[in-house]
Structures are given as C-alpha cells and as structure tokens.
C-alpha cells in the first residue's frame, strides 16, 4: 500500500480520535460547570457513548501512523519516536486521572439513585474533586505538540 493511503488511514484515525476524545474532554469540563445530577448523567452518557469510537479510532490512528512511518522511512528520525512515546505516555498518565473522576461521578450518581444518605453536598464534593481543566489541558497541549512534531518534523 502506498504512503498516501497509510497517511489517509492515519488522518482518518486522527479525525475519529479528536471527535470521540474531544467529546469526553468537553464532558469533563462541562460536568464541573453544571450541577444538576440529571444533566451530569446526560453528559456522562454522551461521553460513554464515544468510548468504543475512541478505542477504534486510536487503533486506526496508530496502525495508520506506524504504517506511514514504515513506508515513508521515518523511523530513523527522532520526531516520530517522540510522537509515539508522547501519545503512549500521556495516554498512560491521563487514563487513571480521567477514569478516577468519571468513576467517582458515575458512582455518586448511582448512589443518589439507589442510596438513602447521599446528599447534594456529597455530589458537589465529588464534582469539585476533579481538576478537569488540568486533565483536558494536559491532553490538549500534548496533542498540539504531537501535531507540531508531525507537521514540522524538527529532528
């Protein structure tokens, strides 16, 4: 398969990744702003609905990127290794951060539904416990830096 096709697959993966993961990033920030449990539950559902699309697009992005790197003979340059490392590293770093917050919110919503002693104050405590701007910001800066590495290929 030609370099152009690998690049196309890679970029298609990027589009899917940004669409799916962008939804989760927006959900993380939105959850902090809206305080109504039902609305938060709706945002959480929207985020959860993109999970499978996120995993599939990440796989496509990686396969396409690695394929393009091999065919284009980029793997003797530093930028592609740094991009890969950054994607994996930031993913590994952000996954537990985001997952913990989403789990907390999901759990408190479930407890508000089924429990007997869970208050709005508890809900507020949980919503305030996360730092969505830091989480989303870290991811955004990392994506921007990867974009810089891929477009400008500085080393």
């Amino acid at each position, binding site marked *: 398969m030609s370099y152009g096709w690998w690049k196309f697959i890679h970029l298609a993966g990027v589009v899917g990744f940004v669409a799916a993961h962008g939804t989760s990033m927006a959900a993380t920030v939105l959850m902090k702003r809206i305080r109504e449990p039902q609305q938060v539950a709706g945002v959480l559902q929207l985020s959860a*609905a993109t*999970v499978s699309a996120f995993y599939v697009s990440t796989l496509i992005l990686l396969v396409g990127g690695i394929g393009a790197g091999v065919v284009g003979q980029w793997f003797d340059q530093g930028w592609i290794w740094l991009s890969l490392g950054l994607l994996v590293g930031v993913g590994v770093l952000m996954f537990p951060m985001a997952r913990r917050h989403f*789990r907390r919110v999901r759990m*408190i919503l479930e*407890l508000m539904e*089924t429990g*007997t002693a869970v208050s709005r104050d508890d809900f507020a405590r949980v919503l305030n416990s996360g730092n969505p701007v830091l989480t989303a910001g870290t991811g955004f800066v990392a994506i921007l830096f990867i974009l810089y590495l891929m477009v400008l290929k500085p080393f």
Partner: protein
Amino acid sequence: MGAHGSPTSAVAEEVAARLAKQLGAELVLLNVDETGSGEDVLRAAADRASRLGVEAQTLHRDGAVAESIVAAAAELRADLLVIGDHGMGPDSRFSLGGIPSQVAHHSPVDILVVRTSEPTRDHTYRRALLATDGSLTAHQATRHGDALAQALGAEVALIYVGDELIGDIVLRDTAARLDRDGIERIVIKGNPAVQISKHAVDYDLVVVGNKGMTGSRRYIQRAVPSRVAHEAGSDVLIVRTVSRSFFDLRPGEGAVVEVDGEKVAAYLHDDGTAFTLSARCQHMGCIVDWNSRARTWDCPCHGSRYEYSGAIINGPTTKPLPGVQT
C-alpha cells in the same frame, strides 16, 4: 456442612452446629467418599452435634468431593454451606485445585469458610467485618452479613478499600441503609483483598460478596472474595450475590443468575411473571447489576440502564437487553 472425619473437619462441624443452634436452623452433615467409612464419620459427627444440642440429619454421597458438595447444597436448597479451609492458606492462593476452593467458587448458596488450622481458635462471632465496594451486589452482601451479625449478637464494622472520597460516602450510605448510623467505618486505600485480609485480624468473621468468583475472568484475575477466603486470618462468609439460581428469586426480586454457564439477568415480577434477559450490556458487553430500589438493570461500566423487561431507560446503549430462553 461437609464432614470428613478429620480434626479440622470437626472444628468446622462444631461451628456449623453452634450456628444452627443459635439461628434455629436445620443442620445437614454431608460426607463424600468412596472408602466405605462415610457412615461412621457421619455418625460420629452427628453425635458431636447432638452433644451441642443440635439433632443433625446426615447425608452420604459418592463421587468427586467438590462437585458432590455443590450438588447436595443445590438439591437441599441450603441457605448456608459450611466448610473447613484445609488447603486454602495464603501459600495456595494461586491454586484453584483445593476442595474448599473449588466449592467456594461453585457453591450455589452462601458459604462459610471456617479457619480450622488453629484448633484452639474460638469461633464465636463477636465482631464481624462487612466489606463493600459500593456496588448493588455488595450492598446485598452487607445486608446479609448484618442480619447474621444481629442474629448472633455480634458487633459490626464496615470496610471500603479504594477511593477515600467515595468510600466515605459509600460507607455512610451503607450504614444508613442498614439503619446503623453509629457503626464503625474503615475507609482505606490499597489493594482490596490485601487490606480486607489485613483488617480481618481484628475480627472473628469477614463478610464479602461472591462477585468475581464465577465466570472465566477468575482464571485471569483472582477475585477479591477468593483471595480474602485464602488470606484472611478470620472465618469468611462469602454471600452469593452473583450467579444465584433463578429459583432463589422471590417476587419483585432480580439477580444475575447462571443458566448452563451463561449469565442471565432474571427478574421475577410480583405477579409471578418471569423475565430472563441477556446479562450483557448491549453497549460494550459488561455484566449488568440489579438495582433493587428502582427495579432496573444498571450497567456499572458506562451507566446504561434498562427496565426489568430489558427496555432501554437511558444510554449509552442503543439496544435493549435481548430475551433469553431458559
């Protein structure tokens, strides 16, 4: 109660007899062996129970020990299976071969694993530790454990291992559900099995749900209740909250049950109508939990919710739970 004539078995028999007496329960002593000495073993065990004031029935079976115990518990529709922990120490925690371990994984009813390795140990249950992860099934286990503790006059403490913020809320809520606001609560970070086993030292009985002990995932990752049963220093009650039998359900109750090795979301309506659905969430395949308060099937992974009939209440799922013929 599984009896096989050894000194360690006698310890478990005594615990079973004392529990039967305190709870006013029937006691059935079961022996499985092919050596022909089973009747003598059972007679001796029944005599010991009689000396404690309990007239026990006896039952002898041939065949594979673990399978026969599990089958007998199901046939008798027992409420509780009592078994000694012979071969279940921390060193064997990676082994799935021991008889108590096999029984614990396949028991169709609640199972009490009695620490029999210390003959001098007093198995009177004065303090019970109820473990919860905040899930709906864990709540069933705590409710069950609390009822037993109350019947035995034991003090109760709750433990949650994990996120401290959520743990604080979960235990306050659990205490309120049990109507025990002043109860001791332990919230601690770390590995659930390790921490529960560590805290078990201060208690006579630990109560956990059986989530994770059934299904193929147990071969990949040792479930918390299984590890606790192997590693805790106290007796362990494993409450069957997952993979119960359909016949255990009461009207208005739902549970994930096992039918021919498949997980089925089963609900028995107040009017006697039975609903049997696939227990796999149609979003990403997680096993749903029964929400007894709202009478819904809730997915713990991404929050999809279904009516008891399987119809969608909310996503991310876009498909209802399909019906299953049983």
